[in-house]
């Protein structure tokens, strides 16, 4: 097997055998990676930074935007960290690998690019305070003492470029039990928190020229060592912002049965409620052929506890990330009991 293909496979631990049982209760697995523990409070700003002792981690920003040309756009900026060994080292010896994904989506186009680097030499990394995450010239930079509340975001690929300013004044949302987000029936979990309420301004550079945009942004932070079970084949994940000011994060991990769902309802004031497995009901109602496979691009989503019953439709059904590990990620529009916009991510569709 090609070494690089092998490396990027490792970056996403879907369908990898679940060898990461809690090891003798010490909070590490057999290879020495740390395992998320319930009841462990998150510590900011330190937890904005990297956790080399955990196997995987990401800084995941999605933004739904409207241009001064009247069109809808979506922007993705993601930095993944994947550790070969549970520590950091200086120089090329570093076992920490980094991967960046950036995408710019409109109704008709979807452009993306990818960056891969290793830690240790400074080509990619994350600093907690003042916040800075980068790979090559792609950056997500904060202000001193402001945590994640004021960010500047840049990325560029062969045919696109964007520069966005993000502002949020609501508190961070901790998913699950105070940030301990369960992913399986048998209790595998990750640390997971978000800033779902950025207001965004900025400029997109498109092949036809620059477009000024405004809109909303959502940042997800998650790290773990083994979030999925062996029979879990992929996930469908929603981050939705409604016109009412409320928001919802919800996902379903697919398996041979009903799957495992989890959702967080976020009130307009920023307070949130975590909803257990089974509370979220999602059903694909339309599929599209994307890259030779059928992918649901219209969903019926219901959260009876919050009287939510909506149809979620992809802005551009062809929002395929043809990166080293491919997946679907793009902006969506929401209709039904609530109206709004958001982002949808789907992995594991063969």
């Amino acid at each position, binding site marked *: 097997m*090609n070494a690089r293909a092998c490396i990027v496979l490792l970056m996403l631990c879907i369908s990898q055998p679940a060898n990461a049982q809690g090891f003798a209760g010490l909070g590490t697995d057999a290879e020495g990676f740390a395992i998320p523990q319930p009841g462990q409070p998150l510590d900011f700003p330190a937890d904005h930074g990297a956790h080399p002792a955990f196997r995987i981690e990401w800084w995941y920003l999605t933004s739904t935007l409207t241009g001064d040309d009247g069109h809808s756009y979506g922007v993705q900026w993601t930095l993944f960290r994947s550790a070969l060994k549970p520590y950091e080292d200086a120089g090329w010896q570093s076992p920490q690998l980094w991967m960046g994904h950036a995408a710019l989506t409109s109704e008709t186009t979807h452009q993306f690019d990818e960056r891969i680097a290793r830690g240790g030499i400074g080509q990619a990394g994350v600093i907690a305070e003042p916040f800075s995450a980068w790979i090559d010239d792609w950056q997500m930079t904060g202000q001193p003492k402001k945590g994640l509340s004021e960010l500047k975001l840049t990325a560029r690929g062969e045919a696109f470029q964007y520069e966005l300013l993000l502002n949020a004044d609501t508190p961070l949302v901790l998913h699950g039990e105070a940030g301990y987000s369960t992913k399986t029936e048998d209790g595998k979990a990750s640390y997971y928190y978000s800033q779902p309420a950025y207001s965004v301004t900025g400029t997109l*550079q498109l092949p036809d020229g620059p477009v000024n945009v405004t809109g909303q942004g959502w940042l997800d932070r998650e790290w773990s060592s083994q979030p999925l079970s062996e029979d879990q084949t992929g996930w469908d994940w929603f981050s939705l912002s409604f016109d009412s000011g409320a928001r919802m994060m919800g996902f379903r991990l697919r398996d041979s049965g009903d799957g495992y769902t989890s959702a967080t309802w976020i009130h307009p004031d920023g307070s949130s409620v975590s909803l257990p497995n089974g509370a979220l009901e999602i059903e694909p109602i339309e599929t599209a052929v994307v890259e030779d496979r059928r992918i649901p691009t219209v969903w019926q989503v219901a959260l009876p506890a919050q009287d939510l019953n909506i149809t979620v439709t992809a802005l551009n059904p062809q929002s395929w990330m043809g990166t080293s590990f491919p997946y679907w990620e793009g902006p969506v529009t929401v209709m039904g009991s609530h109206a709004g916009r958001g982002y949808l991510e789907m992995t594991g569709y063969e």
Partner: protein
Amino acid sequence: MRRTGLAALLSHWRRQPLQLVTLVLGLALATGLWSAVQAINGQARASYAQAAEQLGANRLLGLTAPNGSIPVAQYVQLRRAGWQLSPILEGRVRLNSTTISLLGVDSLSYPVPPAPASDQETLDPADILTAPGRLFAHPETADKLAVAALPAPLIVTDHLPVGIVLTDIAIAESLLERSGEISRILVLPDQPAGLVPLSDIAPDLVLSEPNGDADIARLTDSFHLNLTAFGLLSFAVGLFIVNGTVGLAFHQRRGMFRSLRALGVPLGVLTELLLFELLALALLAGFLGLIIGYLVAAALLPDVAASLRGLYGAPVTGTLTLRPAWIASGLAIALLGALIAGGQGVWHLHRLPILAAPGLQSWRLGSASRDRTQALTGVGLVVGGFLVQGLAQGLIAGFALLAGLMLGAALLLPPILGQVLGWISARARDPVAQWVWADLRSHMPGLSLALMALLLALATNIGVGTMVSSFRLTFTGWLDQRLASELYVTARSDDEGAAIRDWLLSRSDAVLPIRYGELRLADQPGRVYGIADHATYRDHWPLIEALPGVWDRLHTERTVLINEQLARRTDLWPGDEIALRSGWTVEIVGVYSDYGNPNAQAIVSLPALLLHVPSVPNRQFGVRIAPDLSVRLVDELRSTFGLPTSAIVDQAAIKARSLGVFEKTFVVTGALNVLTLGAASFAILTSLLTLWTLRLPQLAPVWALGLTRKRLAWLEVLRSVALTALTACLALPLGLALAWVLLDVINVEAFGWRLPMHLFPLDWARLAVLALIAGGIAAVIPARRLRTTPPADMLRVFSNER
């Protein structure tokens, strides 16, 4: 009818088995030599293409630093400016007493990561990226490394050139002891839009065009053209043999043809049968030739591969792979050769009068007009060759001159020999001598092809021999001048270098730093050396052109010495100016010979180099010391600084290594030389055998006049030796002309250096003796036959033929 006719035709070979062997062997030899050369060339070209693909780097732009090392921090700075790059750290390293080229790549960004040879081997990225890492190498390279004692597990892959070991840069850093350094940076193909130009953010780095491929192609082209020329020559010589034999076979069967025709076999059927016979023989000989070619190529390829690697760093595998195209072309050339040789026979058959008695005249009689046409064509070819070379420069034009000269001279040989023999026979007084010379002259047409083959073989031998020997003489002399220091020391770091220098200062006669920067000279990649002002250079450096006071001017003014290759390629000579990098233009005060180096090179004073190229490594030194003290100094140096064996090399070792590379090249040339000469001797033999049958009717009257068979036999041998001697005399000037073309035209075009020509009369004498022996031996068989011919046979000539 066809079957009977064919059986009748083939019965000839049963009666003349030697002829059959000669024919098949001649054709097989021709095909074999040609195929061998094709196989070697094909293998080498395939290796280049594969290497270019496997390293992938050749098609990418590259960034290098003038001092040879780019800090990792600068690489990161460029990455963070958005440039998509891939760093490479490379160097020579000793693994288990084998020195290999280690290629350290960033496995995450390297464009062509290697794959293991077998699919069963799965690689965990952690294995590759973290200590001890993995080493990747071609099976041939792996064989040379004792796997058990390597610093990391070795993974065998077909996807790497021979002689290179690839590993992750993290592993290479520690193996090469060059932490934090990068040798060069590849600029990847797809870059984001709107980047700040590299020349703005990294003005100190040199951006080089993707030239690896083209460079190797240009450098090795000459080598392959040389081989191809040899192959064609061998084929031509082989054709002479076949032509002689086929001609003989046709002639001897004239009676049979007549009988067959008289018995009612139509001309068309007879022609078909003959063509079929020719085809069958060609196929048989072709397959045999392919086997010979494969064996010759397999025997020579390791040497060819070694010399290509040594000369140009061109990666060539030492094992031969059979290509279908090669087999097809080998058979095709055998068929073509047989048709060319046999076509004439079939043509004669068509003009054969069924009932006419065989004439007395020789099988092929020359005429004055044919001689004139041939002479004119010969002159035309020679002149044409010179015209092409005069009008169009370049390697191909050089070879056109070579071809014109050789072919023209070959065509001129029979008319010239005819003139010479005419002149001699006009001066002969003794009737027997008169007869001998006149007889010889009358047989020139039958022998001319064989003599032409001999001329070409002898001339090639002289020409190539002169080139090789001139080169060896010049090269050893040049090495003596160039490698004036007794010891060459390489330190592992600049600090160690400084310490070694200080330590050596009091213990040796002089310590000469060897420091250089990698720059682009007149837009070609090249090195600029900075040298100290020392008598070693003034006394020994081999200048081929210089302005007065060259050394004083080099050390006091903005001046430079450049190597001959650079001077010839750019046509810049002493008095001209050259840009070494932007803002550094200097006057050329001298040109020095620099054999064996394909690249541009220049020499400035050390202070000038340090001024214009920052942080030039200071790790290599030449050490002057009395030779008898050097052994002790080496021991002390090693023990004091713990230097590895490879760090200190004495002059003799470098010389031996340099000469070794060229010896490999010459082994190939020498082998082909011997084969060609052998083939030519064989051609003479077959021609004489052919003539012998024809000559019986002409010898019979002389025998009847009183010359004994013994005397006639001796005269036969003498004739052959005399013709060989005459040809050898003419081959000498042709060989020297060939040597001149090789040294003064081909070499200059191919390598960029001109070699002085040295003459080696002893070699010529040896070759002449060899040729005479060959000519004599070739005549012995027909002469013996003549001696033992029963007088009745001689008499029958009168009763049957007259």
